[in-house]
């Protein structure tokens, strides 16, 4: 079995938002919609203050609440652990948006462009009408993952078959790979560090691990 997961080393993230930009570039999301976002969290009181950058996106849960509530089977959990959406089945009921505790999903009910109502040539070229009025979210760049099975390359090792955010990270905070493979980069990294998954108590079994200290 394969289960692709992502690890994010919070010690390394500098909040540069390069992954956010890379995601928008790779997936051509409309204005205001970020499948990947990096939150800037300030905690404590002066002089004992701390600043943490928290990259967030779809957690590709092993027990995805979005898949459970979806009335159309548009949201499915794949055998490799990715949670995918079939835009042609989705009715845009937003039940999955309500079910996701990670605020990872969004629905845009009409086409939006960066400037006024007219699309720039670059926007027009990549505009996908199938994504209007349906649920959308981070796909872990599933087209790239699918290509891995054709080319024999390894997600997380070869950039061509690795999510855009992971490729773009300037500090090496993000890793991607098969957690079922004990020799994968992700498995080895998680063995060496202390980590947690967000809102684990909800039973979603998220596929994104946040590293916060060495073992």
């Amino acid at each position, binding site marked *: 079995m394969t289960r692709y997961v992502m690890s994010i*080393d919070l010690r390394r993230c500098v909040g540069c938002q390069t992954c956010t930009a890379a995601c928008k570039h790779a997936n051509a999301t409309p204005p*205001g919609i970020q499948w990947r976002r990096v939150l800037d969290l300030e905690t404590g009181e002066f002089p004992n203050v701390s600043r943490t950058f928290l990259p967030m996106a779809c957690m590709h849960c092993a027990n995805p*609440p979005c898949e459970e509530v979806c009335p159309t089977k548009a949201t499915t959990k794949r055998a490799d652990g990715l949670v995918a959406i079939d835009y042609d089945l989705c009715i845009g009921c937003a039940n999955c*948006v309500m079910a996701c505790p990670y605020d990872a999903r969004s629905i845009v009910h009409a086409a939006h462009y960066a400037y006024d109502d007219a699309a720039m040539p670059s926007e027009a070229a990549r505009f996908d009408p199938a994504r209007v009025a349906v649920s959308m979210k981070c796909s872990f760049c599933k087209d790239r993952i699918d290509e891995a099975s054709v080319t024999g390359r390894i997600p997380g090792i070869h950039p061509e078959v690795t999510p855009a955010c992971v490729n773009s990270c300037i500090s090496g905070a993000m890793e991607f790979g098969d957690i079922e493979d004990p020799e994968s980069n992700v498995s080895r990294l998680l063995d060496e560090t202390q980590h*947690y998954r967000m809102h684990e108590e*909800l039973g979603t079994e998220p596929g994104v691990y946040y590293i916060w*200290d060495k073992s």
Partner: protein
Amino acid sequence: MKKLTKKSADLLSPKQQRNWDWRAAANFIAGGAGGSLLLWTALAGFSSGATRMAILLGLMLIGAGLTCVWFEIGRPWRALNVYKHVATSWMTREAMVAAVLFPVGGLALLTAAPWLVVVVGALGAAFLYTQARILAANKGIPTWRHPRSISLMVSTGLAEGIGFLICVASLSSQMIGTWGLVGAIALIAVRAYFWKSYLGGLHADGAPDGALSVLNGFDGRFLMFGHVLPVVAIVATLVGMPAQSGVLFVAGILMVAAGWTMKFTLVLRAAFTQGLALRHLPVRGCGVAGAAAKPGWTMTGT
């Protein structure tokens, strides 16, 4: 152009959901009351005319709610896809109950056959229950996913249904009877109990501060207008107050209106997202990990 972007800081705390608006709320508001009205109609033993009136009202309420939802979904012409996931989706189950309810309800409306009225009542109860489960299945909204929201939604639906039945009885000169009115008081008491139990559960288990603030602010008005006043009106009728029909009608309206306001509050105003939580802040250099962070929550619950 409408501003769509948000600052990162805006995304930290739980925020009111904006994807389900009044149209989605209307489905829970009207559908729950309609389903419950069908149930009580099956048990009321009214004349065929009053039974038909109550069934028509129940079906209209459910139909109105579903129509509102149809206008809300992004791809309404694909709406039939909603039937594809009966294995786990309560929305699919709600749609399946509705698909059986309307033809059977139509037959009951035409014939007023007692056994059909009973079947429609059972389907109405099933519809009410599926709606309660739809809300509770949404793990992203802490005030909905709390297990006590199910009993709250069912009990308020039952109270609204009996409220409507009292109104129908008042308008059609049907007798509810002493035991029926005592039952209505009991249903009001049950709703008040489950409401307080739900609020207590949220406080004990944790919920976003914004949601608790909304619900706490609503608590007093809900108990007064939806519980105390209707009980006073029904008791006044029981002890022989004049103009009983009008007083009972007002009591029924209060029971319904309070439940609808509560559901509107729950589905829209108190529906805050989960937000984020960090069990540990990262250790940088030779420092130590900071305390856990959960913006927008003061409770320790999930």
